[in-house]
């Protein structure tokens, strides 16, 4: 079944993409999926939108999608909302604020983010890779309403836009370490509200104090559409970060960490086939990878013991 999905994916089957994203989101079959993905001709631009709940992240992305579609860009969104630590349930309500026109070049997936992953869902790197390989040239990541220290998204994206709004606290809030430090762009949304000028000047002053880092500040109103062009111009002016999208190094490390996690948990006992899999993996990574080497040692040591690898773990 995975084979036919991968096959469908290569031929541009959208349902196959959707299903593979589910696999990836559950951490299932990642080595198989990732090893089948072809590099896209051009790597996507990954743009993260983060900020507190209710500041307008979804609405701004919605407006940008409209703008980008006028340029015929292919846009995908990974929109995260929180998963309940109590019930495991989630109400995913981001796409509600995005355009509902049916277009083949717009893909939105809602994801539940478990606590403890820095305001984003687990396994975003392979999902980004799937969307990139499918040919989306712009990928938005929307975090859950992020707290002050939810900075994990910075390592996933080319550009991090931190969204603020008027009336959200005094200027000491902007002095604190965390989210604002990883911002490449600061967006003051709800710019039509009376106190927007005030917040903008506060943030401008405070960001101006950091040496050597120029962070553009953009004023927008997702409601009226004002400033959306300016926001997109600011995003486009950002230099591309080395996400590792080109050579896949970051992703490789990520999958190896996952593998290591599986083995730690499952102890991978008595599975020569798994050993072979890792050896193939090592070949694939040109034999110079520490994590893979350690895994092989681990499995070889355990190979005589009873039990198996629990892949559902």
């Amino acid at each position, binding site marked *: 079944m995975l084979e036919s999905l991968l096959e469908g994916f290569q031929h541009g089957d959208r349902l196959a993409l*959707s299903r593979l994203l589910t696999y990836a989101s559950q951490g299932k079959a990642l080595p198989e999926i990732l090893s089948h993905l072809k590099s896209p001709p051009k790597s996507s631009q990954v743009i993260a939108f983060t900020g507190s709940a209710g500041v307008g992240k979804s609405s701004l992305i919605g407006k940008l999608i409209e703008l980008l579609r006028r340029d015929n860009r292919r846009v995908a969104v990974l929109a995260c909302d929180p998963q*309940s630590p109590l019930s495991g349930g*989630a*109400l995913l309500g981001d796409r509600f604020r995005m355009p509902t026109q049916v277009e083949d070049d717009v893909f939105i*997936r809602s994801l*539940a983010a478990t606590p403890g992953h820095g305001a984003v869902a687990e396994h975003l790197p392979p999902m980004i890779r799937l969307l990139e390989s499918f040919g989306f040239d712009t990928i938005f990541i929307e975090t859950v309403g992020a707290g002050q220290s939810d900075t994990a998204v910075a390592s996933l994206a080319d550009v991090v836009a931190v969204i603020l709004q008027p009336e959200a606290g005094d200027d000491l809030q902007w002095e604190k370490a965390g989210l604002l430090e990883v911002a490449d762009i600061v967006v003051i949304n709800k710019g039509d509200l009376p106190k927007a000028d005030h917040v903008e000047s506060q943030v401008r002053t405070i960001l101006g104090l950091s040496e050597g880092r120029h962070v553009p500040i953009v004023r927008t109103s997702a409601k009226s559409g004002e400033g959306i062009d300016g926001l997109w111009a600011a995003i486009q002016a950002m230099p591309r970060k080395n996400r590792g999208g080109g050579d896949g190094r970051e992703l490789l490390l990520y999958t190896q960490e996952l593998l290591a996690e599986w083995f730690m948990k499952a102890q991978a006992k008595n599975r020569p086939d798994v050993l072979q899999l890792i050896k193939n993996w090592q070949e694939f990574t040109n034999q110079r990878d520490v994590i893979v080497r350690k895994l092989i040692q681990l499995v070889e040591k355990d190979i005589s013991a009873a039990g198996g690898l629990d892949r559902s773990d």
Partner: protein
Amino acid sequence: MSQTAPALRVVLAKVGLDGHDRGIKVVARGLRDAGMHVIYAGLWQTPEAVVRTVADEDAQWLGLSLLSGAHLTLVPRILDLLRKAGLENVQVMVGGIIPEPDIPRLLEIGVARVFGPGTPLSEIVEFLRERGGAVHA
């Protein structure tokens, strides 16, 4: 990487010209509290948009709320589009104001169940749990 089975993914949507979303929001909340992942697609959706949402979200269930009286037009259209999109495994439930005589017709064309006003949330939750998510072809 939890030990438990992945949560059911349920798309909830209102189609056509019907602006009453209190009921569907209550259901969304109830399913959330029952551990499901609810994708709320919102008001004024076209059948095409709903089906696209189900496809892109890889949902196992679609819940439609209709209070406009257009259920015998819109629901068959959606079921048809689901089939055409290769999503015949997606199960559909309908809620809202559906006159009793219309229910057999909806069930006949493939709706799993119709829930009327006053249905306890626990009944919907139990039904979804029992049916579960269809195994993808």
